């Protein structure tokens, strides 16, 4: 609940819209109640009147027509403005989450499951709509209406008024409260099971070939179906609890009607209340319970909303591994890089990097070799400040990374990740991620440097060729080169290339390595690779061993 309230600021921005919806729904309800009451009164009075001519027929009948029309219009307006406002809020929440979640999710060690995150950003956000349209709105109007109706009854039929007030309070507060308590756990499991179902689907889609190859499809299908079965059972349980609540409200409404009827008939006998007024009151009471129906329907979804809010909050509150300094200093000039005494490890007792030192002058190229899992990629992530070292410092252009803003750093240092993604979009879109105003000439030049130009030229649509998700329309080697081209296109002065030639055949690899000097002229390059390097590709070759960099043949270029 507290979590739910923490989303309040995002809702507050749309206060006007919500207020309009609220007022309109109040108008709708009131018009409905008055309409029913008035008709009842009018009919009975007409029946009892003896002098037809003296009976004011036109006032009430005009009022009946006016109220009907008013109710139709206000209901239309209420629904429209309520939904519009809610959808706007949801868009805000999504946007806010993406910005908020992005950095921490990107840098987090926790393997955030993509299916789960997608679920949170789409389905969970949608679930939040039940908070307004759904629970808060009808509840607020219901309470206002209940107060008004109670007041009227208190004056005309005090005893029945008391019963009405109690019944209404139960219907609007007690029943929903109980309902939300009982549906809390079921709602939570619905939200989680939906996310699980999505993850199972993603597993099946992304791992399709593996599953077929290992004929594990039946097990996977059974897993999905087991989740779907649990989800179905949870939803069914929720529907039944909601049906119980509906019954409770029906019961309260019926009991109230009977009470009003009994007390009213008593008053009629005692001549304390006229017939027309009795019928009018009875019908108005009946009408006022319309306010409670909507509350039940929606409160049943409350459990889902609370869980969704908690999941969103959890996502938003993931600790960011690194934060910007309070007063970032500008990055020093030049593309030099110095690492002093760097120690880092996921497990502090067994650090991957120990007191590592490295100095790279601006414009020079170094290669780092080392065994798999030896910390090469970890070193790359430290250079981009995706995480901070446990000890020591890293300086770019003479300034500690921790003193500059991450944006400034990312403009200076670009990384080709080992598993760099290709995005849905055209080849041009994928390149322009690195430099948004790059023209076609620049794109072609970058593709040429990555040895992909001729391949793209051969495609009928050239740079405008659309790529499917994960670049699966390209071969692994082509996708790799596209990501490489993207990195080369960026304006960064320091390039960190993590296995840029994995997936390339040796001939292409050699050609690329031989071109590297020209392709990255004037830039500092950190090349992480297993490939045997021809002479002249880099100025120095270092080995990452036991968490340290050693320089087996300093200043002598390595030969293949």
């Amino acid at each position: 609940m507290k979590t739910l309230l923490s989303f309040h600021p995002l809702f507050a921005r749309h206060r006007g819209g919500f207020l309009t919806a609220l007022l309109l729904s109040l108008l709708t309800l009131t018009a409905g109640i008055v309409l029913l009451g008035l008709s009842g009164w009018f009919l009975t009075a007409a029946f009892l009147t003896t002098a037809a001519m003296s009976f004011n027929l036109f006032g009430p009948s005009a009022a009946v027509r006016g109220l009907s029309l008013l109710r139709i219009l206000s209901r239309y307006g209420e629904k429209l403005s309520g939904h519009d406002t809610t959808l706007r809020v949801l868009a805000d929440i999504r946007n806010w989450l993406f910005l908020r979640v992005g950095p921490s999710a990107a840098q987090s060690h926790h393997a955030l499951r993509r299916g789960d995150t997608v679920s949170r950003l789409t389905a969970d956000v949608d679930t939040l709509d039940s908070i307004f349209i759904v629970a808060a709105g009808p509840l607020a109007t219901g309470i206002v209406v209940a107060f008004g109706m109670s007041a009227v009854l208190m004056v005309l039929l005090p005893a029945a008024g008391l019963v009405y007030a109690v019944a209404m309070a139960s219907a609007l507060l007690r029943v929903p409260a109980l309902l939300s308590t009982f549906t809390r756990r079921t709602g939570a499991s619905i939200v989680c099971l939906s996310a699980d179902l999505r993850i199972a689907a993603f597993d099946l889609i992304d791992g399709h070939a593996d599953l077929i190859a290992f004929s594990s499809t039946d097990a996977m299908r059974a897993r999905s179906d087991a989740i779907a079965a649990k989800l179905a059972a949870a939803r069914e349980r929720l529907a039944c609890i909601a049906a119980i609540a509906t019954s409770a409200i029906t019961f309260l409404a019926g009991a109230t009607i009977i009470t009003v009827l009994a007390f009213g008939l008593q008053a009629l006998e005692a001549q304390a209340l006229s017939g027309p007024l009795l019928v009018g009151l009875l019908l108005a009471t009946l009408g006022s319970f319309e306010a409670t129906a909507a509350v039940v329907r929606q409160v049943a979804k409350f459990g889902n909303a609370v869980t969704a809010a908690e999941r969103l909050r959890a996502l938003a509150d993931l600790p960011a591994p690194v934060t910007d300094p309070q007063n970032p200093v500008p990055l020093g000039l030049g593309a030099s890089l110095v690492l002093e005494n760097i120690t880092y490890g996921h497990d502090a007792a067994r650090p991957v990097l120990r007191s590592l030192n490295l100095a790279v002058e601006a414009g020079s190229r170094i290669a780092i070799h080392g065994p798999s899992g030896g910390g090469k990629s970890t070193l790359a992530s430290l250079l981009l400040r995706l995480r901070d070292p446990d000890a020591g410092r890293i300086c770019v252009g003479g300034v500690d990374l921790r003193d500059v803003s991450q944006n400034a750093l990312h403009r200076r240092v670009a990384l080709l990740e080992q598993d760099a993604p290709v995005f849905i979009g055209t080849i041009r879109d994928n390149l322009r991620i690195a430099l948004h105003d790059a023209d076609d000439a620049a794109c072609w030049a970058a593709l040429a440097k990555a040895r992909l130009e001729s391949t793209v030229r051969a495609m009928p649509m050239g740079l405008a060729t659309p790529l499917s998700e994960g670049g699966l329309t390209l071969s692994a080697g082509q996708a790799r080169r596209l990501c490489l081209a993207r990195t080369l296109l960026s304006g960064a002065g320091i390039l960190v290339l993590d296995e840029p030639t994995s997936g390339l055949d040796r001939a292409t690899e050699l050609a690329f390595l031989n071109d590297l000097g020209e392709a990255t002229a004037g830039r500092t390059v950190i090349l992480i690779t297993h490939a045997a390097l021809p002479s002249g590709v880099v100025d120095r070759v270092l080995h990452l061993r036991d968490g340290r960099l050693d320089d087996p043949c300093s200043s002598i270029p390595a030969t293949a």
Partner: protein
Amino acid sequence: MTKTVGHAPDRASAAPSPASAPASQRAQLAGLRRHGGLALGIAIALPLAAGLVLVGQAYLLSRVLGDAISGGRPLVDLAPDIAAFAALLLLRMTLVFLGDCAAAKACERIKRRLRDALTGRLIDKQSEWVHARTSGALAGAIVDQVEALDGYFSRFLPATIQAGVLPLIFAAAVLPFDGVVCLLFLLTVPMIPLFMALVGWGAQAASDAQAEKLSRLSGLFADRLRGLQTLMLFGCMDAEAEAIRTATDELRRRTLRVLRIAFLSSAVLEFFAALGVAGVALYVGLTFLDMVDARFTNLSLQAGLFCLLMAPEVYQPLRQLAAHYHDRAQAKGALAEIALQFEEIPPAVVRGAASVALTSFARCPQPLGFTARGLSLQTPDGQTTLLLPTDLIIPARRHVALLGASGVGKSTLLNALARLRPFEGSLQLGEDRLEEIPEADLRRKLAIVSQRSRLFHGTIADNICLGCRDADDAMVRRAADIACVTAFSDRLLAGLETPVGENGLGLSGGEAQRVALARLYLTNPSVIFLDEPTAHLDPDTEARVLDGILAFAAGRTLVVATHALAIADRMDTVLTFRDARLVTARRPALHVQDHAA
């Protein structure tokens, strides 16, 4: 252009068949309905019974009021009627409750069947088909679009039947009291569906558009989240957030368009309902005042009140139908979207036919070779020929390295040989034509570890067990040893029980590849295909991994697509892929012949 990754590619690239026509959608919904079974029948019948009870309640209430006000009877005389009224109330409450529960049961059953059918459909498709689609949209179809059918079965369907039956019953109930009111009901009621049908057309179009937008949004999210770190490092987060806002805003506009029409249709209904109620009130009032005289006898207060109480109830089922009208539009939109993503709704689930059980054959570990005749391959879009028609024989137990420049089609060839993608020409595994071997049988005989193996959510050990569900810890450990998985997993606190996420987050590329390889060692295939098994590995690890592969592959047929000459050196034969032809490079040479030669 702003700094965004642009829009999702058009579905044109996926070339789906045109979405099913509305008529067949209606048939599909009817087909799905069958899965609801008895529960759905109860969900439809009970509200009708509750409607009948309502007539009794209105009758009793009007009688009590009439007797008290015009007859002046004391409260004690009326007590039995009031008690009966209370009893009916309880009865109706129970009926509605049971009806609600049955509706939930029925539609959960339907959704589960459909989900399972879609999952099955996904499994039956070829990997290439699956990968040509946006994963977020496919997953969205199974999770969200199926959920969108809920309202149709749990609310719209019962409401339709009620709207067809209850107003007539109510009108008939009024007939003994007043013919004019009955006539008024019978005249106004049919007007309503007419108007609604008009409004419904627009609602459908708008709803389809909305379902499509939702699909796109899911696809966009899934894609961007995959590459979140890259986007952040290139400073694209703000631009991407903006793109997502635009997409979300578009979804809002579409949703609102659906809702506006839905609300309009219910407003039309409300208008008619109000007209009807006001008409009855006015007629009864005027009759009481003797200003209208359409009857032979005097109208009693009870009859007048009964008419007035019934008036809103006559229109209530129709109003409910209108309120749930967008459930139908939504369901149809969802079905159309599922059909678009999956090319069709699995016919079995809409026809209710039982699915065919897979026949399984006895295990046959005999060595098998491959024979290809006139085999040719093209890129999925059909633009480029990867392999010209070629004959190729790979004898049983031969170890073959498949070399070639990146993108030349090595992976495609392996996938075709493993029946994971379409090909032209004929392929034989041993003595059998590849396309005639039952799926389960083929997968037992043939193992493939692809270049981009997926790590599933679970522990490292779980992932290795994919090859053999009932492997014990020792077997898993041994497989992990051979694939050099233990070389890194032993450094982790939880060892092989370390959880790995979707896409193997947390493991490096080389580590994930070795986990995928370890799966192989729990199987017993005759033929093994490996695609770049040692990418991302340093030479030492590469050599050890290769030792494991060769030890396992002894006595089996092995084809390895690779760039690593270290691997090629240790194979019997090298096959080089160049200019859409295969060239055999070393003794013992394979029989290769391309048809052009």
